[in-house]
């Protein structure tokens, strides 16, 4: 599954017992693909001495503040851009 720039995506809400690079504050949140970077070795395997192959595409996904922190006080908004490996992305819910 390859995602396109501009496409809405939801970050998988699953827990992960070991090292991974998907921060919890975006899990289950829906954002927009901003860039599709190159593919990189999987850090979840590399952290334990494995080669991390095959490489997995890395996407830059942006999230609106109001989606990440609905309870945030009013005021000027912002977006947070996070690099997420493709196997953490799902079709937007």
């Amino acid at each position, binding site marked *: 599954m390859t995602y396109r720039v501009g496409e809405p995506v939801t970050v998988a809400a699953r827990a992960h017992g070991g090292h991974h690079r998907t921060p919890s*504050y975006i899990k289950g949140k829906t954002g927009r693909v901003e860039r599709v*970077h*190159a593919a990189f070795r999987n850090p979840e395997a590399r952290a334990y001495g494995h080669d991390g192959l095959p490489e997995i595409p*890395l996407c830059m996904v942006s999230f609106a503040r109001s989606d990440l922190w609905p309870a945030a006080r009013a005021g000027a908004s912002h977006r947070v851009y996070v690099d997420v490996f493709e196997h953490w992305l799902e079709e937007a819910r």
Partner: protein
Amino acid sequence: MSEHDHDHTPITSGDEPAAAVRARALEELLVEKGVLRAEEIHVGIDWLVSRTPGDGARLVARAWVDPEFKQRLLADARSAALELGLDPGPSPVVVALENSETVHHMIVCTLCSCYPRALLGPPPAWYKSLPYRSRAVSDPRGVLAEFGLEIGDDVELRVVDSTADIRYLVIPRRPPGTDDLSEEELAALVTRDSMIGVARPALRQW
């Protein structure tokens, strides 16, 4: 570990901070298990602490004076660094993000301290601190205000969390009144913090 009866220096000796004790223990283990040689560790640390934000500043200053170079920098910062004879470091991809009148970028690594070390040197302590890493994504305008940087409500604020293999470098806006400056003089205005996106370059006040 080899068997021996002599005493090692106690690992919790003196007033050494806990993190330093952990780092030293890790280093000793890596050497003992043959993963790295002590010289390799020292060479790596020496290389890292010898990098400076001056290299990143050269990229920014060239981008300010050469629009075609700026396009190449935005397209592939690693190649652009090599073009200026700079060492872009081991990260396979470096991405430069341009600030403008309407868009402001700031960089954080909420998971640890990912940072374009080859071009900016070691990250500042605050960049690695829990308050910056947590608040930069939830209250970036509040964080920037503490750095003395007010971002207007009409400016689109983009907080970039460098969670994976990409390293990010901000191209700050060229300060007004700098038309007569040479590229070298411009580079001297480009600060470390302005390339993280928490400050603006500024003309010297003295």
